[in-house]
């Protein structure tokens, strides 16, 4: 048997392997170039981008929790114009698909941003963040109300012909309902899950640890929730899914594929091990080889229940 085939395709974006880097955990790629080979991961998803530069929240913005971390960065980013001028030239030199995560304060901003990104040949696809739990306006409303989600995804759909991924929030009662709304509005793929809203308290000070009071929980602690949601959504929709949530190892990634994900995103793991994404991709290949599996696609949704 030759080398196993790790390639997958998400909404027309061809990935050499299923491992992407999650938005907000991998900067604009360059930050990690010293630690891994950017051409050995499936895709780079950039830090959430808005129309105008965004300051983000006050500090403290992060706190570690058992098996995870809370963050409330507040979508600090350079804005689309600086992204094009300062960040894109490097990404252009890397032979790996670049997916831009985008975020708007208003419906109109989502549309305008998608239009601008649509014109950039370097951008392989868009991932729409309708689910950031850490900003006051916008995000959370779109991410938890199926009607609002339908509206924003429809508008982005009209503004771009690029592959359109929508990132779902887990902070809802019925994730399947949200998934349906996004697919009906024209999403080519769904990525899930974003962080779970949580908080941490300092007993001595009797104060919340994060300046924003609440933050998004990520890391191994949320993996079971993420697996459950990916599995539920996989039963309900036809579009490819990208599994996210506490993926630290190749085993974690392969579990998400069994649950129905076509690809995965590695997030928090990048923080503790900047070479995590590459190690996970290598580990997946080793698993396929060791188990005589010729094609990773055989595992997608192959969960026996």
């Amino acid at each position, binding site marked *: 048997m030759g080398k196993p085939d790790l390639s997958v395709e998400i909404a027309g974006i061809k990935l050499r392997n299923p491992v992407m880097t999650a938005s907000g955990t991998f900067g604009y790629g360059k930050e990690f170039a010293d630690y891994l080979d950017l051409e050995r991961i499936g895709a780079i998803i950039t830090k959430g981008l808005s129309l105008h530069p965004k300051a983000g929240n006050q500090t403290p913005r992060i706190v570690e929790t058992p098996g995870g971390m809370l963050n409330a960065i507040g979508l600090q980013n350079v804005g689309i114009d600086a992204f094009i001028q300062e960040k894109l030239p490097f990404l252009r030199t890397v032979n790996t698909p670049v997916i831009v995560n985008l975020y708007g304060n208003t419906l109109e901003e989502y549309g305008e941003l998608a239009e601008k990104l649509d014109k950039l040949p370097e951008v392989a696809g868009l991932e729409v963040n309708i689910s950031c739990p850490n900003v006051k306006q916008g995000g959370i409303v779109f991410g938890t109300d199926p009607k609002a989600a339908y509206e924003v995804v429809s508008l982005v759909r009209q503004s771009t012909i690029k592959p359109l991924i929508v990132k779902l929030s887990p902070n809802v009662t019925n994730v399947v309902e949200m998934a349906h709304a996004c697919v009906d509005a024209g999403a080519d793929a769904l990525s899930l899950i974003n962080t779970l809203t949580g908080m941490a308290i300092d007993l001595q000070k009797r104060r919340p640890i994060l300046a924003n009071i609440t933050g998004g929980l990520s890391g*191994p602690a949320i993996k079971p929730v993420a697996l459950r949601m990916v599995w539920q959504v996989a039963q309900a929709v036809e579009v490819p899914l990208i599994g996210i949530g506490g993926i630290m190892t190749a085993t974690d990634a392969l579990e998400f594929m069994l649950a129905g994900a076509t690809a995965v995103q590695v997030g928090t793991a990048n923080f503790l091990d900047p070479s995590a994404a590459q190690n996970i991709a290598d580990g997946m290949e080793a698993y396929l080889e060791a188990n005589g599996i010729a094609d990773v696609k055989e595992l997608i949704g192959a969960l026996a229940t």
Partner: protein
Amino acid sequence: MQFKSMIISNIEVSPGYFRMKMTAPPAAGSASPGQFIMVRVRDAIDPLLRRPFGIFDLGTFATAYTDCGTQTYFEILYRVVGKGTDMLSSLHQGDVLDILGPLGKGFLPGDPSGEKILVGGGVGLAPLYYLAKEMVKTSRVRLFAGGRTKEDILCITEFERLGVETYVSTDDGTLGASGLVTEVLEKHLTAGIADKTIFACGPFPMLKATAEIAGRHDIPCQVSLEAYMACGVGACLGCVTKGRNHSNETPDYRCVCKDGPVFDYRELRWD
């Protein structure tokens, strides 16, 4: 750079404060004073994140066990403050740690002819030792070390052995002068050489007071900040501090990990 490092020693130098010496690859020897490393205290998901530590010392010793006949090592000086540092303090010689670094921007020593003034608060002394070691070769170096109590005054003998003139103060007066380190600093500034530079590391209020003194006396001053950080490479944006031009409309956040941890005090906002 990411590498495995073996612990050479891990000694409690004062109650709750440890000094850990560990091996490093030869390339780590190029680290400059003020840079830091991120240590994974164990290969598990709890604690999840690495812990940042300033480089206390760095050097080589002769050994028969490497190809080049020398072994590069570095040391960190840390205080046990939580789960991560508690676990670190229980590690022994021969234990192996996963390290990221050297990271960030260090101190800029500047013109060797001037006087170098170090200001350290508690464990903030850590990066100043390696800096002093480099600077005593060419410059006059004075150290102002402060802490809440005598047990927070660390490694003063080591500084003195380098030839550094030391001024110790404690908030409760149990060692050295009674009062804040910045009060002692200002008292001793007046009768100095004209060409001075201040290098400070410690808690934020101490750095702020030091920055104010530097401003009043028009002395160049570099401060090393401490912050909670997740990645250490400028990606998570968890460790940011406000830059000089910061406003909500025109954000000017600097990453402590990547743009710092050492900053010219004029580059930051102190409110």
